[in-house]
C-alpha cells in the first residue's frame, strides 16, 4: 500500500507539474477517468460517446475528437490516436483551467494562446495550419445541426460572412486580385481578441469530488 501510494504520488507530482492541476483535482479526475474507462487503463471514443449528457451537444464529435487529437498533447505530434491514457486525458483537461490571481500577464498570455490553439485545432481538422472556408462551414453547420433544416442554407451564409469578416479584419489591404486562403492561427487570435479567452474558457474544477456525482454512464 505504501509503495503504491508513493508511486501514485510520484506520478501525480509529475502530472501536476505538467498540467498545473492540484493533487486533489488530479485525484478526482482520475476517479472520473476510471468511471469512464470501466477501470481500464485507456479510454476509447466509444467510452466518451456513451455519456448520455453529451448526446444533446451539437459539437459532440469535435469535442470527443479533440481528446484523441495528438496536437493537443503539446508534443509536436500530429494525427490522432484511438486510445488515450490518463495522462493524455489530463493534458486535454488542462486547457480548461482558469487563471488565478497569481498568474502574471505573460502567463495569462500563454494560457490564452494555448486555449486558442486548442480551439483552432478543433476547427482545423485536416491539420494544414489554416481553417479553410469548407472547414469553417462545417463548424457552423455543426453548431446549427440541432436546429433542423432551417439551419442549412443560412449556415453557409453565416460561414461565408464570417470568413469575409476575418479577411477584412486581418488583411485590410487585400487587393481585388487576391483571395483569402484560410484563417491562420494569427488571424484566429486576432478575431477572437475581444473574447478574453483566458477568463471565459474554463470550468470550475475546484475540488470537485466526482465520485459523489452520478456517473455519466449510469445516468445523465
Amino acid at each position, binding site marked *: 500500500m505504501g509503495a503504491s501510494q508513493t508511486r501514485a504520488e510520484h506520478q501525480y507530482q509529475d502530472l501536476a507539474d505538467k498540467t498545473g492541476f492540484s493533487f486533489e483535482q488530479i485525484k478526482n479526475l482520475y476517479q472520473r477517468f476510471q468511471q469512464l474507462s470501466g477501470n481500464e487503463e485507456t479510454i476509447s471514443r466509444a467510452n466518451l460517446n456513451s455519456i448520455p449528457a453529451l448526446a444533446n451537444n451539437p459539437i459532440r464529435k469535435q469535442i470527443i475528437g479533440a481528446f484523441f487529437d495528438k496536437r493537443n498533447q503539446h508534443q509536436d505530434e500530429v494525427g490522432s490516436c484511438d486510445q488515450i491514457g490518463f495522462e493524455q486525458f489530463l493534458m486535454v483537461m488542462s486547457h480548461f483551467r482558469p487563471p488565478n490571481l497569481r498568474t502574471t500577464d505573460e502567463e495569462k498570455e500563454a494560457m490564452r494562446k494555448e486555449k486558442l490553439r486548442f480551439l483552432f485545432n478543433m476547427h482545423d481538422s485536416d491539420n494544414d495550419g489554416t481553417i479553410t472556408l469548407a472547414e469553417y462551414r462545417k*463548424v457552423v453547420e455543426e*453548431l446549427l445541426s440541432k436546429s433542423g433544416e432551417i439551419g442549412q*442554407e443560412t449556415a*453557409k451564409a453565416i460561414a461565408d460572412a464570417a470568413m469575409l469578416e476575418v479577411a*477584412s479584419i486581418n488583411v485590410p489591404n487585400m487587393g481585388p486580385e487576391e483571395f483569402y486562403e484560410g484563417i491562420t492561427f494569427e488571424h484566429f487570435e486576432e478575431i477572437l481578441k475581444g473574447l478574453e479567452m483566458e477568463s471565459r474558457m474554463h*470550468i470550475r474544477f475546484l475540488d470537485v469530488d466526482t465520485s459523489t456525482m452520478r456517473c455519466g454512464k449510469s445516468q445523465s
Partner: protein
Amino acid sequence: MQCDSSVASLQVISPSFVQQHACEERFTQPGREEFTGAGLLLLIVLVLLQGSVLPLGATSSPDTTHNVDNRQVKEEKYNYTKKAFPVLTLDYHHIQAPFEISLWILLASLMKLGEYHVNVTHALVPPDTSSVRHCARELPVDHRGSSRGGAHQTSWRRSPPVLDSRLFFLCLLPPIILDAGYFLPIRPFMENLGTILMFAVVGTLWNAFFIGGLLYAVCQIQPANPSILHKIELLPCLLFGSIISAVDPVAVLAVFEEIHINELLHILVFGESLLNDAVTVVLYHLFEEYSGAGTVTVLDCFLGIISFLVVAIGGVLVGVIYGLLAAFTSRFTSHVRVIEPLFVFVYAYMAYLSAEVFHLSGIMALIACGATMRPYVEANISHKSHTTVKYFLKMWSSVSETLIFIFLGVATVDGPHHWNWTFVTVTVLLCGWLTYVINKFRIVKLTTKDQFIIAYGGLRGAIAFSLGFLLDKKLFPMRDMFLTAIITVVFFTVFVQGMTIQPLVELLAVKKKQEAKRTINEEIHTQFLDHLLTGIEDICGHYGHHHWKDKLNRFNKKYVKKCLIAGERSKEPQLIAFYHKMEFKQAIEMPKKPPPAKPAEKAEKAPSQLPKGREEEIRKILRSNLQRTRLRLRSYNRHTLVADPFEDGFGDLLIKKQKMIELEKKIKDMNNYLTVPAAPPDSPTMCRARLSSDPQSYRAKPESDSVPTIQVDLASPQSPDSVNVMDEFRRAGQQRGGGRGEEDQGLMMRPHKTGEGADGKDPQKLTRCLSDPGPSADEEEDQPFLP
C-alpha cells in the same frame, strides 16, 4: 332674430353639449352633413336655444354658469343680479395639478437641454451632477417664484417642494428601473450573478450594521457637553445605517454610463445597486417596526431573514409571472401593432405595483419582468414597436432622473434640516467600502484596482433620501438630522465621487469598455464555447454552471419559446437570429437614391475582380452592418442615445419588406452560387476558378418583380448596379493605401438602389453567378420579424 342674438352670445364648451348633440339629432334634418362648419355651429346654437325651452335645461349642472342660456337665466331667476358677462376669466384651480406637473417636467427637460449646451464647454461634469448644479441655480428662481406669490405660493406651501415619497416611489422610480431592467445585458449579469448577489446581500448587510453600529458608538462617546446625539438609540442608528448603506441604482446609472468603464465592473456595481433593494426593504421595515418597541429579539432576526428570502424571491417571482404574461400577450398582437408598447409598459408597471402591495421588492420585480419578457417580446413585436418601447423608456427614465435630482436640490435648500457635524462627517467617511472579503470567492479575481472602483462607485441617491423622508417624525425625533446627513452623503457621493470617478478611471488605467463591434465570429465562437464547455463538464461528470445553463436553454427552446413566440421565429436558433438582425440592419441603412451608374468599361476587368469583388462587397456591407449593430447594441446607454440616424425616416413598410425579401433571395442566390460543385471543395474563395474558366457569362437578368421599390443588391446578378459595385470598390481599392481607414470607406460602398427600378437593363451587366436559378417567384409572406 333668435339666431342673431344667439350668435352674439355664442358659448363655449358645455357639459351638456352631449345632450345638445342628442337633441341636434332629433331636430336636424338628415341632410345635415352638407352643412358647412359655420352652418353646423349655427345649428348648435339654435338647438341650444331650443333646448332651453325643453326640460333639458334642468339637467345641466348648476355651476356651468357660463353656459346657461341667457334667456333661461332671465326666465327662471328674476332676482338674479345680472353683472357684466365675463369675457375672460382666470380659473387656475381647475387645471392646477396637471399644470404644475407639466411645468416641472418642462423645466426638467429644458434643463437637460441647457446642460448639454453647457457641457459642450465644461465637458467634465457628468450630466446628473450638472442637473443638481442646475437645481442649485434654480433654487433662487424658486424662491423668487414663491415670493412672486399668488396661487403658486399657496400651492408651494400646500405640497412641499421636497420629494413626495409617494410620487417618487410610484411615478419617478419605476421608469428608471424598467429602463435598466429591460436593457439589462443578461449574459454578463448571469455570469457574475454570484458576485453581484454577494455584494448586494452580504455587502449591504455588513454596511448597514457596521455604519449603524459605529454611528451609535460615535454618538455615545461624545464627551462632556450633552448634545442631542446622546439621545439617539441603537435602533434608529441601525435604521439610518440601513437606509444609507444601499447603493443607489439611479445615481449609479447616471454616473457610470458616462465613464464607459469595462463591462464587468459596470455590471457588478449596477447589478449590486439593483439587487440590494430587497435587503434595504427588509432592513428598513424591520427596524422601523421595532424601533417603536425598542428591542429586537433573536426571533425577530430570524423572521427578518425569512422575510428577506420572501421579499427577494417573491419579488422576482412576481416579475417573472408578469413578464411571461406580457410575452404571451405579445404573441397575439400581430394585428394590432399600435398598442404593443403599451403592453410592455403596463405589465411591467403592474408587476411593480403588485410587488409593492405585498411589500415585496418592487425593484426586483421590475427587473425580473423586463429581463424575462424581453427576448420573447422582441421576437414578436414589430420593429417600430421596438423602437417605440426603447424611446419611451429612455424618455421617461431621462425625465425622471432629472426630476429626481431637481427635487433633491430643492429639498436641500428648502427642506427641514438639522445639521450636526459629527454625525454627518462620520457617515460620510464610513460610506462605501469593504470588498476584499468578497474577492476570495470569485473565480476570475478582481484586482485591487477593480475593487477600489467598485467601492468608489457606490453612490447613494434619491432612494435613500425618500426612505428617510418616509420616516415618522414621532417615532424618530432625529429625522431631520438624518435627512440632513442623507442629503450630505448623497451630494458627496454624487458630486465628489461622481465627478472624480472619470479621472480616477483614467489614472488607474482601469480597462475601459471595448468599443469593438460584436462580430459574427465572436458570436459563433461564443456559442461554440458554450457547447464546448458544457461538453467538457459532462465528460468530467461535473454539473456546473454550464450544464445547468445548457439545460435551461434547451428547456427554453423546446417549450417556452414555442409558447411565447409567434410563428416561425420560435424555432430560430440564436445564431441565425443574430445574423438576420445584422442583415436587417443592413437592409435598413441602404441609401435611397442610387449614385449615377458608371458605364461598364470595367466590364473587362470584371472576371478577375469578380470573386474578390463580391467578397469585398459583402465584407464592406458586413462591416458597415456591424457598426450599426454596435450602435444598436450600445444604445441601452441613455446618455448616448443620439438619434440613431437609421431609426427614423424609414421608408414605408412595403419597401422594407421588399428589401428584406430581396435580401433573402440574394442570400439564397449567393449560397446557390457558392455551392456550384465546379470548384474543389477546399477553395477558400467564392468562385475564382470557376469564373475564370467561363468569362462569357454576361447575362442581363430581368427585373425580378414589378414593385417599383428600392432594391437591395447584395450580390445579385440581375442588379443593374453590379457595375457600380465594381466601380466602387475599385475606387475603394485605390484609396486603400492607408490601412484601416477604409473602414469608413466601406460605408461608402453600399449596394445601390435603382430609383424606380427602371434604370435597368444595362446590357453590359455582369452576372457573377453561373448557376443562378434566378430569384424565386414566390414572396415569403410572413417575414417573422417584420409586421
